[in-house]
C-alpha cells in the first residue's frame, strides 16, 4: 500500500526535477555561447579552398587579423547577413569564409548569385573543422588575431550594427598591434 502511494508521487518528483533544471538555467543567456576556443589558437586543419581547390592550412590564414565567417548555402540566416558581408568586404575587410557542411556545388551557386565577399573559403564539407572550432550553427562570425588566436565570437546574423558596435573597435586594436582589451 505504501509503495503504491509512492507510485502516484512519481509525476510530482519528475516535475520538481524539471523545475530545478529550469531554475538553474535562468539568467544564463542562451545566445552567449562561450567558445571553447576563445583566447586559444584557431584549430589546425588541412582542407581545400572551395573555389580554387588549393590546399589550405592554418598557416595560410594566419599573419594578419581577419574575420572568419561560418556560412552555408542551406542556412537562411546566412542569406540575410550576406549583403552586410559584401559591404564590409568592399571596404577592404579581410573575411575568410568557412563553408560549413555544405555541398560544394550548392555553395558555388550561392556565391555566383549573391557575390563573393571572401578572400579564401575553407571547404569544411564534413564539418570537422567546425566541430574543432566549437561551431553551434551557421551563421557564426569569429575574429582571429595575427597569431591565429580566436579573440571574438558572434553567433547569429551578423550586420553592420554589430560590426560597428562590437567588432570594429576590437579589430582596430588588433591592427594597431595593441592588447585586444576591447574584445570580449
Amino acid at each position, binding site marked *: 500500500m505504501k509503495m503504491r502511494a509512492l507510485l502516484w508521487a512519481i509525476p510530482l518528483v519528475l516535475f520538481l526535477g524539471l523545475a530545478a533544471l529550469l531554475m538553474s538555467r*535562468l539568467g544564463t543567456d*542562451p545566445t552567449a555561447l562561450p567558445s571553447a576556443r576563445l583566447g586559444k589558437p584557431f584549430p589546425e586543419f588541412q582542407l581545400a579552398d572551395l573555389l580554387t581547390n588549393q590546399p589550405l592550412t592554418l598557416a595560410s590564414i594566419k599573419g594578419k587579423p581577419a574575420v572568419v565567417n561560418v556560412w552555408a548555402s542551406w542556412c537562411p540566416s546566412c542569406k540575410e547577413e550576406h549583403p552586410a558581408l559584401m559591404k564590409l568586404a568592399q571596404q577592404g575587410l579581410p573575411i575568410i569564409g568557412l563553408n560549413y557542411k555544405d555541398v560544394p556545388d550548392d555553395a558555388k551557386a550561392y556565391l555566383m*548569385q*549573391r557575390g563573393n565577399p571572401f578572400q579564401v573559403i575553407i571547404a569544411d564539407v564534413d564539418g570537422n573543422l567546425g566541430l574543432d572550432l*566549437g561551431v553551434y550553427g551557421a551563421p557564426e562570425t569569429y575574429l582571429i588575431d595575427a597569431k591565429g588566436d580566436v579573440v571574438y565570437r558572434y553567433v547569429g546574423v551578423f550586420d553592420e550594427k554589430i560590426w560597428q558596435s562590437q567588432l570594429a573597435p576590437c579589430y582596430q586594436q588588433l591592427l594597431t598591434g595593441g592588447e585586444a582589451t576591447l574584445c570580449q
Partner: protein
Amino acid sequence: MIAELGHFALVLALVIALLQATLPLYGVYANIPALQRFARSSALMQAFCLILSFAGLIVAFLQNDFTLDYVSRQSNTLLPYYYKISAVWGGHEGSLLLWVLVLSLWGAAVSLFSHSLPREMVARVLAIIGMVGVALMSFILMTSNPFNRILPDFPLDGADLNPLLQDIGLIVHPPILYMGYVGFTVPFAFAMAALLGGRLDSAWARWSRPWAVAAWCFLTVGIALGSWWAYYELGWGGWWFWDPVENASFMPWLAGTALIHSLAVSEKRGVFKAWTVMLAIIAFALSLLGTFLVRSGVLTSVHAFASDPARGMFVLGILTVVIGGSLLLFALRASHLNSESRYALVSRESFLLVNNLLLVTATTVVLLGTLYPLIADALTLGKVSVGAPYFNALFMPLAFILLVFMGLGSLSNWKRHDIRSFIPLWKVLAVAVFLGVALPLFFFGTAPIKVMMSASLCVWVLLSIVRDVWLKARTAKQGILAGLGRLSRSYYGMQLAHIGILVTILGVTFTSNYSIERDVRMGVGDSVNVGPYHFEWQGIRDIQGANYRATQAEVKVSKDGELVSLLHPEKRIYVVQNRSMTEAAIDSGLFRDVYVAMGEPLDNNQWAVRVYYKPFVRWLWLGALMMAAGGILAMSDRRYRIAARQATPVVSQGATAK
C-alpha cells in the same frame, strides 16, 4: 487618462480574482450557498474588468499615446489602424494581458454554461480558474505592466511594430492560439475540483469533455494559423521549424489530444480516471511551460520576446506552485480513484490506451528535444540543440503506429472486441496499398518507400472509416439515408477529425517529399522551369505602402504554354525601423502552390529569386480545419444539450431550497 482607467480595471480584476479564488472555496467548506454562488458572478465581473482594461490599451494604441512605454515600443503613427490593434498583442506585456483576458473569458463561459452542474462543483472550478488568474495578473502588474508611463521624456513617435508581425496572420493567430492554450485551464480546473471534492465519476468526465474539446479545437486552428503565417510570411517556404516556441504549442496539443480521448473512455466506461486527471494536469502544465519558455529567455527562438530573468523567475514560481501543488494533490488523492468497469485485452479501451501512450511518448519526444539544450548545458556537455532531423526521425514511426491504432480503435467496440471482425480489413488493406503506391506514382512519377507507406496507411484508415460508416448505416431498416441520419453527431465528429488528421499527414508526406525549390538569378526576359511550371520574369516597379516602400516584381507562371497566374512578389523596406522584408507571392491550389520570393538585388537589374513548387501543401491546414470542425460537431452532440436542458430545474430547486 484612458490608460489609467485600463490600469485601474486590471487591478480591480485582480482583486475580484482574489475573491473568486478564495470565497467560493470557503463557501464549500462552510456550506454557505451564497458564497458558492459568488463564484459565478465574480467570474463575470472579472471578465468585464479585463475587457475594459484591454479596451483601454487598444485605445491607447489607436490614439498613439507614446507616453506609454509599451505603446512607444510597439507602435508608430504611420501604422494602419488594424495593425495598431494587433500591435496590442505584438509584444510581451500586451500578449500577457491577452492571456488573462482569454482566461477570464473562459471563466465567464464556464459561469454562463454550467447551470446544470452542482453548485459546489462550479464553485471549486471557478475558484481554481480564479487562482490561475491571480497568479498571471500579479505577474503582469509586478513585472510586465503595459500601462507603465514614461514621463516626462516620452518619444514623439513610436519604434514601430516588427514588420514580420504586420500581417493578417498575426492579427488572428495569437488570440486563437491563446484561446486554445488557456482553454486547457478549464479541464484542469475540473480535474482539480473533482480531486478536491473526491467525486470523479463519469458525470465529471462528461462535464469537462466539451471544454477540453473546445480548447483543443482552438489550439488546432491556432497552430495551423501559425504554421500558415510562417509559410507565407517568413519567405522560406517552410511550414514547421521545430522551433522551441512552435514545440511549446505542439506539446499541449499532443497532450490535449490524448486528454480528449482519455476523457471519452472515462465518460463512457468509468476507467482510466487517474490517467485522465494526469493528462488534464499535463496539458495545462505544458501550456504554462510554453509561456515560461517564451518569456524567460532560457531558450533561443525566433519568437522569443525580451528575455528577462526576473520575469522568468516569476513564471517559474507560478509554474512550481500551480503544477507542483496540483501534482501533490494528485499524489494524495489519485489512489482513491477506482475503475467502475472492466475491459478485455482487445477492446476500444485498450486501443485508446495504446494511442494515449503513443501521444504521451510523442509529447515526451518533443519535450526532451526542446529542453535538450538546457539539459546538455546543465550537464556541461556544451551548448547544443537538436534540430529537425531528430524530431522527424522519431515522429515518422510514431505517426505510423498511431495511424494503425487510430484505424483499429475507431472501429472496435467498448469492453470487448471480437478480433476476428478485423479480418475483412485485409481486403481494405490490399486496396489501400494499391492506391497508396499508385497515387503518388500517378501524381509525381516516383515514390520513395516512406511515401508509399504513409499513403497506404492513410488510405487504409480512410477506407476503414468509410466502411465503418456504411456498415453502421446499413443496419437501419428504413434504408441507408435514414441510417446515416441516425448516427450521432459525436460519431461524425470523431470520423471527420480522424479524416482531418489523415489529410494533414498526406499533406506533410507529399509536400516534404515532392517540393521543388530553386534559387535563381532573374532579370527581364529570364525564365526558369520548376516542376511542371514555367516562370518568366516580366520586370519590376516601385510602389509606396502606408509605412513602407517596396519593389514589386511581376512573374508570369505558365504550364504547358497556358497562363496560370501573374505573381507579384515584393521586397519591402519598412521606413521606421529600416528593415527589409520579403513578401512572397503565392498562387495556391488544392493540389499545389507555386511560390515566388524575392531575395537580394544583383547587378544588371537582376534579382536573386527563390521559386518553389509545393504540391499538396494546403492539405496541412485543410486537415487542421477538418479536425477542428470534427471537434465542434462532437461538442454539439445531443447528450450535452440534453444534459443542459434536463438539469435546469435542479438549479432552481437549489435556489428555492435556500
